[in-house]
């Protein structure tokens, strides 16, 4: 009912090839864009900008870059963090060598450096496949981070070994560095992310995108029908690294403000990979959904855990969950599936937590941090089990249901 496409006729090729052929999709996107461009900037607080809006956009962009490579072209990469680093360092060198360069131009240019390095590390993909390639990309990860540390020219021979973002001006407004306002940074991030997202959508549904998908699905078969594998794989590496590099530049210039080499270490690569996989490999929207989950969830958990209400209601919740756990454990013994197992895991944790509560124990921020890591690990497994194709697939299913809603068939 809500998503009915009946009556939406396409009477020209242009209409048939429209970005969003379904009217409801375009409408929803319009609402999202209004929120992104108008409502959020007007209402968000400093905290929301810095912990939710800006990082979610940046991580979504990085995941989109990775998704081009892994989701569309089928080349598993674990070196995303290092390629983000290349973008960040390239941008830093550019703005320090040419201070009058427009910051947005600098950020967009910095992607080309990571694209070049991405192609170099992509060359082995012509011979190495699957997990072997994944480990090979780790070579890029470790080597580049080591280079960031040892090559002093990259950070202008700073004593600290870190890159500090200078105050950069554009049309008389500070756009990055300590003096820039969060709103300005947000708009720049949003602008770049919107631009690259449109680029990605169009790339992946065009000739290049189809070539990538053929390579992903079976590269030998793709080669037999005349696809140039070298071109296909290397363009995927180049474009993916370009986007990842831009995301890296944004990450340091618009969000962190300063970065040491170890920021770009392997945990960052994994975080981006999680977003891409939880969101859905081979989708564009999934990256945003994944980023909202992976970046937003810890923040939300922190806020909830910090409130007084949570501390007080925890004990009663604990008793309730302990009951569920007991039932769950029995059915687990009776082999009724993973869901119960997950409940048990959760319940055991709550038991521990509840016990600590009765001992007059209050959670401190370090513990919340640890529990967050644990919850995210659990959630990754949980989402992989309920929907291995990611949040994007969940949305697709909901959409299917909405087409015929309120009827069951």
């Amino acid at each position, binding site marked *: 009912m809500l998503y009915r496409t009946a009556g939406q006729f396409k009477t020209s090729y242009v209409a048939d090839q429209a970005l969003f052929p379904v009217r409801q999709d375009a409408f929803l996107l319009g609402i999202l864009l209004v929120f992104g461009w108008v409502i959020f900037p007007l209402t968000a607080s400093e905290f929301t900008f810095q912990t939710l809006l800006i990082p979610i956009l940046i991580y979504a962009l990085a995941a989109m870059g990775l998704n081009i490579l892994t989701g569309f072209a089928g080349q598993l990469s674990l070196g995303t963090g290092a390629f983000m680093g290349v973008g960040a360092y390239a941008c830093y060198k550019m703005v320090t060598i040419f201070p009058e360069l427009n910051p947005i131009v600098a950020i967009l240019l910095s992607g080309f450096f990571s694209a070049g390095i991405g192609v170099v590390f992509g060359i082995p993909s012509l011979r190495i496949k699957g997990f072997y390639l994944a480990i*090979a990309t780790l070579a890029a990860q470790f080597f580049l981070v080591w280079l960031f540390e040892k090559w002093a020219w990259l950070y202008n021979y700073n004593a600290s070994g870190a890159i500090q973002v200078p105050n950069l001006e554009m049309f008389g407004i500070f756009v990055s560095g300590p003096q820039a306002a969060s709103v300005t940074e947000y708009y720049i991030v949003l602008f770049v992310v919107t631009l690259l997202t449109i680029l990605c959508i169009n790339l992946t549904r065009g000739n290049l995108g189809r070539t990538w998908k053929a390579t992903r699905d*079976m590269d030998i078969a793709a080669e037999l029908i005349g696809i140039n594998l070298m071109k296909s794989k290397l363009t995927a590496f180049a474009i993916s690294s370009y986007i990842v590099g831009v995301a890296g530049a944004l990450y340091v210039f618009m969000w962190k403000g300063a970065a040491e080499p170890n920021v770009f270490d392997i945990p960052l690569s994994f975080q981006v990979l999680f977003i891409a996989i939880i969101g859905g*490999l081979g989708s564009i929207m999934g990256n945003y959904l994944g980023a909202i989950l992976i970046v937003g969830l810890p923040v939300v958990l922190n806020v909830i855990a910090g409130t007084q209400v949570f501390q007080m209601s925890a004990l009663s919740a604990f008793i309730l969950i302990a009951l569920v756990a007991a039932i769950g454990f029995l059915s687990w013994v009776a082999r009724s599936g993973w869901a119960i*197992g997950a409940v048990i895991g959760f319940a055991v944790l709550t038991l521990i937590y509840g016990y600590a509560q009765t001992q007059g124990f209050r959670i401190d921020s370090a513990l919340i941090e640890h529990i967050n*890591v644990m919850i995210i*690990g659990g959630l990754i497994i949980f989402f992989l089990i309920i929907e291995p194709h990611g949040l994007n697939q969940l949305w697709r299913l909901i959409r299917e249901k909405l087409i015929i809603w309120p009827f069951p068939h």
Partner: protein
Amino acid sequence: MFADIFINPWVDMVEAPDFLMQVLWEGLVSGILYALIALGFVLIFRSSRIFNFAQGIMVVFAALTLVGLFAMGIPAWISVGLTLVVMFVLAVTIERVVLRPLVGQPDIILFMATIGITLFLIGFGETIFGGENKVMITEELGIPTGDTVLEPFGGLLILQHLDITVVVVATLLVLALLAFLNYTQMGRAIRALGDDHQAALSVGISLQTIWVLVWFIAGIIALVTGIAWGARAGVSFALEVIAYKALPVLMLGGLESITGAIVGGLMIGILEKLFEIYWGQPLLGGNTETWFAFVLALIVLLFRPQGLFGERIIERV
């Protein structure tokens, strides 16, 4: 420059053979530990095609459990036993909760699931044991701590007793594993699963039992490596990094090959030490051990895409 790269290192090696032997020895010690971890990877990969990223955190987790149990006043050797029990429970839980529902999913999904396990165990371990660095209970376990000084070629060669113990124990463990895999029914079942899943299932080999078994073996290996590395560098979450070192070993040796894991481990352990001492430190500012193994494996892979001992990759449309 040319001399620095191609001549001087060799001259240094010949001029100070005792130092060279010291370097080789240290490379051997870490090499055998890499081989051990890689063996854990290979067993799991062969029997389930799962690329187990959680091996590193299992090392940390085992070591932390051991130290934590000992801190609760339990005698050292009983703590070791209890830790093994914990690792077994962990293996069963992982098989039940994570692997079984994901049977038949693409490799990358299973790989991600093991990263999920890694994160979960990091959070779990930090919550229970705290994130700070701990001291491994070396003496309580009866591991000798002194050193022996040899004087070959009129120089000095210092052998830490700890390292000797590590080499002996790790070698014994590797031999025991090989014997287990080759001469017991269970071991043959594991290898059968590695060769052909469906054929193995059709002759009545239980997938689930084998999975628990290989994860438990990986747990035992994790405990041994945890003790060994913990005794040298303290027990902390930084130990997780050594699992990354096992990855190039796997690439070099081949993901399916047990021989490959052992040979690759020793090769990488020794070569990365040599490179670090003779090329890395004088020319590149040191700390090359983080990436050398990967680059080496990458170069080898360019010529042999399946690694030195891996199964030949046959591609069909």
